[in-house]
């Protein structure tokens, strides 16, 4: 009788300390893998972009084939981490909403006037289902154009913002 599979054997993470990430003159990532192979124009993808943004980063080659997964970018060398972190910062744009000035509309179609950590912005939503709340109090918002916003913890919003947000949850 064969032994049943050991589930965690199914994925091998990259040995991050031996991975080198640099940026090319074309503003693309160059990754040197532990086996010494070097790949240009590598794409870095967050596998858990919403819930764990700096862990389990998948590196894809120019063909979209996965080179491997880095479990935690902190395992990388200082320089590589910096490059990868800035690349991810660029790739994923999701402002954090700190204050809601106004929120109006009906039937789920709403206009928001908010303050974010990247400055003030106004946007519109197509349905109320584009507001997703996690148990922890985090809220993800996707606007009509496909832009994303988050609220780290809606319980910590000021009373006015909270009252406005509550109408959408």
């Amino acid at each position, binding site marked *: *009788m064969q032994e*049943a*599979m050991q*589930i*965690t054997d*199914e*994925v091998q993470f990259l040995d991050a300390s031996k991975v080198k990430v640099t940026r090319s003159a074309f503003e693309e990532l160059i990754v040197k893998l532990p086996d010494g192979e070097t790949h240009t124009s590598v794409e870095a993808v967050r596998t858990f*972009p*919403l819930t764990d943004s700096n862990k389990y980063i998948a590196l894809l080659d120019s063909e979209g084939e996965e080179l491997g997964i880095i*479990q935690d970018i902190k395992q990388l060398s200082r320089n590589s981490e910096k490059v990868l972190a800035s690349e991810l910062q660029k790739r994923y744009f999701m402002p954090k909403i700190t204050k809601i000035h106004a929120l109006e509309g009906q039937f789920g179609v709403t206009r928001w006037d908010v303050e974010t950590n990247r400055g003030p912005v106004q946007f519109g939503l197509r349905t109320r289902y584009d507001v997703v709340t996690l148990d922890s109090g985090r809220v993800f918002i996707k606007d009509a154009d496909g832009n994303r916003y988050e609220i780290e913890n809606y319980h910590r919003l000021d009373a006015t913002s909270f009252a406005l947000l509550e109408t959408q949850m």
Partner: protein
Amino acid sequence: MHGMRPGSSVRREFFRKSPSNGHPAFEKQADEELTTMEEMPEELENRAQALLANGEEIKVAISTDLQFDGTYGKDWVIATDKRLIAFNQNSTPQHQLREISLSSVEAVEIVEMHGNNILKVRMPENAVEVARYSRRVSPKFDLATPELATLVSEANPNAEQEAPHRPQGSGKNKDKCETCGHPIPRWSGVCVNCVEKRKLIFRLIRYAYPFWHVAAPALALMMLIRFVSLYPTYLSKEVVDNVLVPAERAVVGATVTQTGAEIPPPTWGHLSGIVDGIAEWMTLPVAGSWGHLVTLILLMVGFNFFTMSASAVRGYMMAWVGQNITRRLRNETYEHLNALSLDFYNDRDTGNLMSRITEDVARLRDFIANGLQDLIGDSLTLIFICALMFNENWRLALWTLIPLPCLIFFTIFFGQKMSKVFSVLWKRYADISSILASTIPGVRVVKAFARERYEINRFSEQTYQVFQGEMNAAKLWTLYRPIMEFIIFSGSILIWLVGGSQIFGGALTLGQLMMFHGLMGRFFRPVYTLCQMNERFIRAATSADRVFEIMDTPPSVADRKEAVELSNIRGAVEFKDVYFSYDTEKNALNGISFGAEPGEMIGLVGHSGAGKSTLINLITRFYDPNEGTIKIDGHDTQQVKLKALRQQIGVVLQDPFLFQGSIADNIGYSKPGASRHEIIAAAKAANAHNFIVKFPDGYDTMVGERGTRVSGGERQRISIARAILKNPRILILDEATSSVDTETESNIQEALERLVRGRTVFAIAHRLSTLKYADRLVVLKNGKIDEIGTHEELLAKEGTYASLCEKQTELSKIRAW
């Protein structure tokens, strides 16, 4: 009478059996006791006994409910260990007893037909039909047939040994009430005839009990409000009689006679002391008319203010109680719903169950929080009003109450008409929805066959039905309002007439007349609500029954008391003589016996309806077998804790279900607390990782009804990841690859190959290629094992499997072109 058909006399006889009093059509038909030894009529017994030899004993005596010509009536089948006697009263010229020697019988059979069955006895040369019966008594015959077969095999050793095997007590007949035999409405699942209203209401009140510390004060407050709210009407009498009239007289008297008319000293009625006190405190002139008036008006305002604010407080309190009851009822119902077994869900549709938890519970809340309070409050109000009236002037009070019976009659009359009209209307609206629900998703078919006009006409016909229904309702409404208003008006006319004449006689004051008018105006609402109470009561009771039915149904598959845990199993599964039937009519499994070694992959093959899925449902214990046992590592599954059992089993279904939530949540569903590492690993093993990473939100992508659309093959791979993560010893693949295209199938195949390693696997597949890794194949046919063996063995056998294979190869050739 002429032209009477010969059959009609028999039919009349049938009807005569029902009691002539009451409703013959709804005669209570309690379930006859299931016995194979019924009491025979004396005459029949004597005739039968005469045929028997000495010491011969009657072993079976059962009656039918049909005769051979298809009319209702009682025939009998009697059996001893030597002979079978069929009593057939329908045959001419006279009631006939047919005798069959058991030693000549080869087999006893039940021939199942449309709506009725026939019991047949097969002999070497011929066969005799001995009884014809409807489905109502078929349980009895199912019970008797094996007994007959036993008697036959004792008398005739050459007889066919295998009796028609029918499991007993399987499935419940939910079309008819078990206690009264009344048909049960499909939408409700509750016998309308048997709802014990009073009991249910008491049970409901128990749900309010934990909140009595709020409910009781609210009730007390309500009584106070009802009482106090009548006081301004009483005060108005004081204003007229003791302030306005004397004042007017004084003014008129002064102008007419120019002499100071005497102003009677003010009387304050019941509140004399208080009013004097307040007036004194406010330094208002007690005897002065103006101050008196202001004081009384202030009192009115005060009472009114109290009533309003107290009502608000009471309303909030009752809302709290009501919502708490709702929440508790909903949670308890849902909890029990989760405990219930699959057979419960099979009998009922989702919408029905959902509406019980949402609508019925809300209706119950309304009844407990508002209905019961209204009952008490309105009764009290009526009593208060009557008391006030009779206290003032009992003659006039009697006159005032004359329109009351009319009021009650019309309210009830219209109420009943209205509920009929509205239930029809409700049904018609539902029909509109069902037209929409079928044509909107089916729009491609409608357009493809150019049937738009037909659908539009159908819809228009339905909207016309609704229009008519609404107009019927409007007819009632528009009639109802004026009639009610007229009745109330006639009451006030009576007050004017009788009260006026009493004023002439000096028996009544103007203030009292005013007060009667005021009270009359307050009479209507309580009477109305009380008249509606009965209907509210019935509705609440029905709702309560629907909710309590869920709570009272015991799960058919539940942990036994002595159930044991199951840990670290090897995965050996053994079926032994397993019989199972979803209903009482047809066996889904007919004596299945085979074993699977640990780590063995068993492919289940057969036509649809052969019992493949049923077999799997029994392994997971979604159902328990009616007979026989299923053992896992030697443990009878029925003796094992459900949770422990299901922890060892992983399932991948044909149409995988994704819950509302992220992909990571959905994969982790099978293993609470699974790490991200494990989730990614499981997804990789299931060939799901690559497409998941391509979603912008990766593993955080929301899926489910409102989430990102995920294709069938992707859903399937997520559900395989779910099964892989659980790492079960026993794995079930129910058509895991049938709904995807060939390329995705090979992707999934690859994942499955990894998944099945080292586990006991039961796989169902229509595409036999899916089963190429199976160690053994079990071919099922009509709930029995037809063939069993490896692919090569079965091909060599040239049986069912071989022919199935051949057909599929031919098909795939065609496909390849």
